């Protein structure tokens, strides 16, 4: 399959990311993420961006990205070699820019560490801690993850350490995409709660049971420019998933707790 035709799903996510970012109702935004060599996310968001921070552990990918966005009029372009979670944990706190749009896009799965979630959680905490200092300013966070990880225990074992036991019960019996979707939402909810932030689940897309992308808009204190009413982090557990099934022209909204039915029907 041609590299650039596979991506209706990815392009739709980029469009949703743009839609989400536009609801912030402010200009000169900063993007942070792993845009890949073609930097399609950034190209899609051109027009609302002022600065970009591109992170990738392959310098050759950064070189490509640099060229791909060379014709965009941006104020600052930063190309940081390294892994995104490490960047979030170690360098992002001292970064002068604050990412209005962060796109944690891990092709092939983000959570594959030997010490599951250690880096990821530290990275997320560092990210949210920095953003919590920006009062009354909403941000967009998109996170794409794929179930190419080391299995459900990666999620459950880690979550046991950081969320309340009644929440862990939600994961009981869950597996496949449901477990992962719930786990990621629990993780995000936890971080948002820690910083007393409100949130809107802008979109949670599940493509062909493989690509899972969650886009949230959140802020600490009310952002009067924002086109959304934000709710408590608990709303993350009630908002449905938008399931894009193969061969179906119309996506379906499925409550996150019913996602397991998809696994069964697929099985």
């Amino acid at each position, binding site marked *: 399959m041609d590299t650039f035709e596979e991506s209706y799903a990815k392009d739709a996510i980029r469009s949703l990311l743009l839609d989400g970012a536009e609801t912030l109702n402010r200009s000169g935004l900063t993007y942070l993420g792993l845009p890949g060599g*073609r930097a399609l996310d950034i190209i899609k968001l051109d027009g609302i961006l002022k600065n970009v921070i591109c992170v990738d552990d392959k310098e050759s990918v950064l070189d490509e990205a640099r060229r791909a966005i060379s014709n965009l009029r941006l104020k600052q372009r930063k190309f940081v070699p390294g892994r995104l979670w490490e960047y979030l944990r170690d360098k992002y706190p001292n970064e002068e820019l604050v990412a209005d749009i962060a796109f944690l896009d891990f092709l092939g799965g983000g959570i594959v560490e030997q010490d599951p979630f250690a880096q990821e959680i530290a990275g997320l905490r560092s990210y949210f801690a920095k953003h919590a200092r920006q009062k009354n300013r909403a941000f967009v966070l998109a996170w794409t993850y794929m179930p190419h990880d080391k299995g459900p225990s990666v999620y459950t074992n880690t979550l046991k350490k950081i969320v309340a036991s009644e929440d862990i019960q939600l994961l009981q019996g869950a597996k496949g995409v449901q477990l992962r979707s719930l786990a990621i939402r629990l993780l995000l909810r936890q971080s948002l709660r820690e910083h007393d932030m409100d949130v809107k689940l802008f979109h949670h897309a599940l493509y062909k049971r493989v690509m899972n992308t969650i886009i949230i808009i959140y802020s600490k204190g009310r952002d009067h420019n924002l086109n959304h009413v934000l709710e408590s982090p608990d709303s993350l557990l009630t908002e449905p998933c938008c399931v894009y099934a193969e061969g179906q022209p119309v996506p379906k909204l499925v409550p996150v707790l019913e996602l397991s039915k998809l696994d069964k029907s697929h099985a």
Partner: protein
Amino acid sequence: MTDQFKKKAVQFTLRDIGSEIIDQLSSDIYSGPKQIMRELVKNAYDAYLAVDPDELEDEKVEREIVISRERNPKGIGRILIADSGIGLTVDELKAFVQISLCKKQEELINATGFRGLGSWSTIGAGSKIIVTSNKKNHSSEAQLVIDVREIYSIMGPAATLEDILNNSKCISFGERTSTGLSQGTTVEVVCDGPPESVNGHELNRLYDYTDPDSDLRSIIVESCAIPFSSEGGAYKVIHDICREAEYVLTHISLDGDPLERGLPDDLPEPTVHSITVGGQVVAKAWVTTSSKYSGEVRTIDEDRHLLGGKGLQLKKLNVPIGPKNIYSNGVVRATLPNWYVGEIHILADDIRPDASGQDLRAGTARETFIAALQTFYKQLEQQGERKSDIISTERKFRQAIGAAERLQRGGLSAADRIQAEGQIATAVQLIEEASKRTKPETKLEEKKRAAAKDPKVEPIRKQARKILKEAKLLDKYSSSKKRTITEKRTVASAASKDKQKVQVMSFNEIQARLGRAVPRLAQIGLTSDEIEQVLEIISDLILGDR
């Protein structure tokens, strides 16, 4: 009878050209950062000329050259010059390394990069030059990599041009599937460290300017075609001249900031002057100068105005040629051109910059043009002197009014009294000069009279006359009894093409589009259940009657 020479075929190949020819192109002609940046920006400018302006408008592609730079913690610096112009295929990229074969000048009207030296002219800029290009409506993306360090390490008396051109370590081409999302070309100058000499040849010449804190902006302003910011007001005459000079407005940005020039607010609207040779207009100039001061323009804020200082800049297609006030030395007073801010745009085709961009190409056209330009400088000098005379005359009348008041108040010291009387006598003399009807006898007299009679001076002259007369000082210092009294576009239209396309959407695309609608439906207040119902209705509509 001696033997006649018989013709013998001798063929030349690239092996007969020494590799050091490259150094002649890159070092001797284009040594400095200004020359390198000019070449790179010119190429980007030319990339837009090949695109139908209607297409650019239809697709909302702005003519813009985006320059960005970066220095990473390892000390590797980069400058990227990107355009969204026509783009190049691999075959067309080959022109970057061909020498004097580029057909740009014949193919593109008013292309600026007409010397056909391609990337060789800028080769010493970095240690590597990477050109990546997406041609419009072309399925592949092309790349050319020139490894300058490798080339320089091979170059020498023993190496031929072929040894370089056909060595894939020195020059390599690549191709891959295009995303189809953008078109245009990016030239990336990579400097792997500070300037250094490899095998006697200098590379990384732009290294210092890869530091975002370095002043690359001045280099660009002084060497590239930077447009003025606005079409209207005082700038209209400037834009009109630029258009007449066939410059197509192309924006340039550096590190996200647009580079746009402007004039200090206190300068009046520029005046337009034609420079002619044999009755034909070969150049047009716009000139403005401070209306308050007689000397140099003092109010330029280089950060805001990006004028590259005061003075007059010669230009071809809006690209500066040489330093300001070129060819004025010895013709007019050295400081005089700095009394003005302005540009001289060459309109004639046969008057062109030379390869260095610092001078005009040799020939009779150059000589006759320079003579005409020097006549223009002299005219400006006369104007400048006249303005100076006017301002000085106004000052003398003001001084006389003050002196008359001081004399009337009394109590002046002898020295002050002499000074005041001198000021009054000078003013009275000027009042008399203005009223004379006879022909001036000397040049000085002519100048004085012209200044005193100038309409700008008239109000203060009349005021001074009145005050001096009332104080009976006019008669006292008068040398004559004669008294007389004297007195004073934007066309833009583009037809958009109606393109009717029959679109066939795949399920995937419909699905993606509908997915995008979900947050919007939520935003207008629909609950998840309601959105799901809407999606079901759509699903029925699409699939129901299949």
